[in-house]
C-alpha cells in the first residue's frame, strides 16, 4: 500500500531529528503567520497562479533563498564536524549522516540555489531589458517554476522522511546503483534532479524563444544589453546540455528500478560511461550558472562608472566563445580516471583556452572603470570581491587544467576551494550585486546601504578565511568529503580557521536577511523612484515597481544604452500611441503540475507505484485540460492604459 515506506523512515539520529524539528517549526510558523495576516487568497490570486514573469522571478528567488538556508546549514554542519573531528574526537555527525550532508549540500546549492537564482533573474530582467511585456510562453513559465519548486520541496521532505543520498551531488555509479545503494536516498536524488531538470529545460526553451523573437523594434542583436547576451548564451547551454542529463538519469533509473546494467559493476555495465555522460552535462551546467553573473557585472559596472561598457563587441564574442568551449572540456573532471595522455592533453588544452575569453571580460570591466566616475556602492564592492576571488579561483582552475597537477590535487580540498571560488566568488557575489542593483526596480525602495556594506565585509573576510586555507589543506593531502582525520596530519588548526570563516559568512548572511526586513520596514525613507542609479537600459524607463504590462508603449531603440541616449535627447523611446494590451490570465495548472510531480517523485522513491501512476495520469490530465481550454486573456483598453500611466507619473 505504501511501497517500502515504513514508520522507521520517520525516525532519525538526534542531530537529524533536531533539524527536522527546526524545519517543521519554522515552516509552521510561516504558514501560521500567513494565516494570521489572512493573506492566503492574496497569495493564491496574485502569486501562486500568476503567469507574470515579475512575480515568477521573485518566487524563484524566494525559493532559492530558502534553499540557501538549507544548503548553508549543511555547510556549517560540515565545517563544525571537520573543526572538531581530529584524532579521538568523532565529532557531532556520524559518518553516514556526514555523507548525506555533503550530498545534500552540493545538490541543493547547484540545482536549487544556483539555478533558482539564474532563472529568477532571467524572469525579472530579460523581458524588461528587451522591451517586451512577457516571455514567449507564459504558461510554460509557471510550469517551469512549479516543477522547480516541487523538486525543491522533495529535498525538504527527504530530510524528514527516510534518508537522503550519500553518493555526492552527482551520484557516481556504481555507488549510486542498486547493489551499493538500494535504499531511498539515491532515488530521492534522481527524482528531484530529474524534475528540476525538466523544469530547467522548459524554461530554457522559453527564454531562448523570448530573446530570439520578442525584442522590441530596433533592438538588433548588437544593441542588446550584455545581460541579455549572457542570458542567451546560458539558455543555449541549458537547451543543449540538459538533455544529456535527462537521458543519463533515465538510464540510472532503469538500472535501479528495472535491474538494467548500464552502469553496474557486473552484467557488462560500464560505470565510466556514467561519469563521462554526467560530466558532458555537468561542465556546461557550471557555465550556465556563471554566464548570467558575468552579465550582471556588465550591467552594474558601467552604470556605477558613469561610462559605457568597454569593448561591447569583444564581450559578446567572449560570451559566445566561452559557451561553445564549455562543451568540449568535460573530461577535465576525470583526468585521473584512466584516459590516455593524448585524451587528457586534448581536454587540458581546451580547458586552458577558456581562460582567454574570461580574461578578456575581466579586463574589459576594469577598462570600463578607467577614467570613469566610479561610485563605490555595494554592488561595486561585490564586483571588486568578484575580481579578487573569481580570478584566484580561475587561476587555480588553470593549475587544475594541467593533468600532472590535477593528479596531485584532484578531489582534494584544493579542488573544493577552486570551485567555491567560482560559484561563491562568481555566481553568488554576482547575484548579490544584481539583487542590490535591481531591488529598487521591483519594490520601489532601496536596500539599506549601510547594512549591505556590513554584510559585504563579513562575506568577504568570511569567504577568504573559509576557503583560502582549503588550498593549503589540499596541498597537504586533505581529500574532500572527510568526516574525520588523524591528529598527526596537523590539519586541525586550519580547519578551525575555516570554521571561523564559515561563521563570519553566517553573520554576513544574517545581516542580509535582517537588512531585507529592515529595508521593508523603512521603505518610505528608502524610496527610490523609477531610475535611482541613472540607468542605461530599458528597465529604468518604467515605474518602480513596474506596471503589470511592463511597457505601456513598446519602446523603439536604435543604439546601445538606449536610456542614456534618451536622456541626452538622441532618442524618443516611446513614440507610438497607446493601444489595447492583452495579458494572459492566471492559472492554477502550473502549481498543480508541480505539486503532482513532487508527489510522483516521492511515490517513485518509496515504490508506491499506484500513487506514482495516479500522479502521472493527473499530470497528463492537467495538460489536456489546459490545451483544451481557450487561450484566456485579459484586455486593458488603451484609454485605461493611459490613465494608469498618468497615475504612475504623479
Amino acid at each position, binding site marked *: 500500500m505504501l511501497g517500502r515506506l515504513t514508520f522507521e523512515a520517520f525516525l532519525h539520529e538526534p542531530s537529524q531529528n533536531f533539524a527536522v524539528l527546526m524545519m517543521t517549526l519554522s515552516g509552521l510558523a510561516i504558514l501560521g503567520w500567513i494565516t494570521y495576516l489572512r493573506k492566503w487568497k492574496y497569495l493564491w490570486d496574485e502569486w501562486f497562479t500568476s503567469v507574470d514573469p515579475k512575480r515568477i522571478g521573485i518566487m524563484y528567488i524566494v525559493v532559492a533563498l530558502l534553499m540557501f538556508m538549507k544548503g548553508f546549514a549543511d555547510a556549517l554542519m560540515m565545517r563544525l564536524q571537520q573543526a572538531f573531528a581530529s584524532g579521538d574526537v568523532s565529532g557531532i555527525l556520524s559518518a553516514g549522516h556526514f555523507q548525506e550532508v555533503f550530498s545534500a549540500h552540493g545538490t541543493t546549492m547547484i540545482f536549487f540555489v544556483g539555478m533558482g537564482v539564474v532563472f529568477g533573474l532571467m524572469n525579472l530582467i530579460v523581458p524588461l531589458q528587451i522591451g517586451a511585456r512577457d516571455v514567449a510562453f507564459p504558461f510554460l513559465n509557471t510550469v517551469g517554476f512549479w516543477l522547480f519548486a516541487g523538486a525543491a520541496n522533495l529535498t525538504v521532505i527527504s530530510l524528514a522522511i527516510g534518508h537522503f543520498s550519500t553518493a555526492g551531488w552527482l551520484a557516481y555509479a556504481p555507488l549510486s546503483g542498486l547493489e551499493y545503494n538500494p535504499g531511498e536516498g539515491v532515488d530521492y536524488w534522481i527524482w528531484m534532479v530529474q524534475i528540476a531538470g525538466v523544469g530547467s529545460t522548459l524554461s530554457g526553451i522559453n527564454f531562448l524563444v523570448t530573446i530570439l523573437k520578442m525584442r522590441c523594434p530596433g533592438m538588433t542583436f548588437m544593441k542588446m544589453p550584455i545581460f541579455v547576451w549572457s542570458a542567451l548564451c546560458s539558455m543555449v547551454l541549458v537547451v543543449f546540455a540538459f538533455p544529456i542529463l535527462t537521458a543519463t538519469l533515465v538510464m540510472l533509473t532503469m538500472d535501479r528500478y528495472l535491474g538494467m546494467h548500464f552502469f553496474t559493476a557486473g552484467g557488462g555495465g*560500464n560505470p565510466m*560511461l556514467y561519469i*563521462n*555522460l554526467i560530466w558532458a552535462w555537468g561542465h556546461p551546467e557550471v557555465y550556465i550558472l556563471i554566464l548570467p553573473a558575468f552579465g550582471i557585472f556588465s550591467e552594474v559596472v558601467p552604470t556605477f562608472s558613469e561610462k559605457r561598457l568597454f569593448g561591447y563587441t569583444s564581450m559578446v564574442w567572449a560570451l559566445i566563445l566561452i559557451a561553445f568551449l564549455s562543451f*568540449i572540456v568535460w*573530461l577535465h573532471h576525470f583526468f585521473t580516471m*584512466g*584516459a*590516455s595522455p593524448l585524451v587528457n592533453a586534448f581536454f587540458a588544452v581546451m580547458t586552458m583556452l577558456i581562460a582567454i575569453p574570461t580574461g578578456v571580460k575581466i579586463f574589459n570591466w576594469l577598462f570600463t572603470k578607467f577614467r570613469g566616475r566610479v561610485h563605490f556602492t555595494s554592488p561595486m564592492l561585490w564586483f571588486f570581491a568578484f575580481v579578487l576571488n573569481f580570478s584566484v579561483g580561475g587561476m587555480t582552475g588553470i593549475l587544475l587544467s594541467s593533468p600532472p597537477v590535477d593528479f596531485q590535487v584532484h578531489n582534494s580540498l584544493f579542488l573544493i576551494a577552486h570551485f567555491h571560488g567560482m560559484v561563491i566568488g562568481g555566481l553568488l557575489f554576482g547575484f548579490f550585486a544584481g539583487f542590490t542593483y535591481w531591488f529598487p526596480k521591483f519594490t520601489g525602495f532601496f536596500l539599506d546601504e549601510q547594512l549591505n556594506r556590513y554584510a559585504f565585509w563579513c562575506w568577504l573576510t568570511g569567504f577568504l578565511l573559509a576557503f583560502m586555507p582549503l588550498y593549503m589543506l589540499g596541498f597537504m593531502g586533505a581529500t574532500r568529503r572527510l568526516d574525520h582525520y588523524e591528529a598527526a596530519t596537523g590539519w586541525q588548526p586550519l580547519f578551525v580557521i575555516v570554521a571561523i570563516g564559515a561563521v563570519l559568512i553566517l553573520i554576513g548572511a544574517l545581516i542580509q536577511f535582517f537588512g531585507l526586513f529592515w529595508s521593508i520596514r523603512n521603505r518610505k525613507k528608502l524610496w527610490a523612484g523609477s531610475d535611482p542609479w541613472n540607468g542605461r537600459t530599458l528597465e529604468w524607463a518604467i515605474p518602480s515597481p513596474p506596471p503589470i504590462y511592463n511597457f505601456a508603449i513598446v519602446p523603439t531603440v536604435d543604439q546601445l544604452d538606449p536610456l542614456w541616449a534618451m536622456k541626452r535627447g538622441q532618442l524618443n523611446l516611446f513614440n507610438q500611441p497607446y493601444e489595447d494590451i*492583452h495579458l494572459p490570465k492566471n492559472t492554477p495548472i502550473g502549481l498543480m503540475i508541480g505539486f503532482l510531480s513532487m508527489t510522483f517523485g516521492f511515490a517513485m522513491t518509496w515504490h508506491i507505484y499506484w500513487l506514482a501512476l495516479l500522479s502521472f495520469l493527473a499530470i497528463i490530465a492537467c495538460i489536456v485540460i489546459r490545451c483544451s481550454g481557450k487561450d484566456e486573456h485579459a484586455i486593458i483598453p488603451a484609454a485605461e492604459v493611459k490613465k494608469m500611466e498618468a497615475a504612475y507619473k504623479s
Partner: protein
Amino acid sequence: MHDEMSLKEIQKEWHGSYRAYAIGFIGSLLFTLLSFFLVLSQTLIGAPLVYTLSGLSLTQAILQFVFFLHVGQEPKPKWETVLFAFMILVLLIIVLGTLWIMHDLNDRVMVGM
C-alpha cells in the same frame, strides 16, 4: 481573445505540399529498400557495407528533414535551421567525444577483462 493571425494566414505559413511529401516518401522508401537489400543480398560486406549504410541513413534523414520537416524553408531569420545546425554540432561533440573517450579507456583496461 481575438486571433492575432487568422486561420487562413497560418494555413499559408505551413510549408507542406503534395510534391514535397511525394518526394520525401518515395525517396525514403527507395533508400530503405536499398539498405535492406544491401544487407540481405550481401552485395557488400564488412566495412564498406557499414559505411554505405551510414551514408544511406544520413541521406534519408536529410531527405526527411528537408521534405517532411521543412528545415531551411522557414522565413528569415531562419532560427530553426540555426538551432538544427547547432544541435548537430553538439551531437557530434557528444557522440564522437564519448566514443573516443570510452574507446580510449577500454584500450587501457587489462587484457582478458
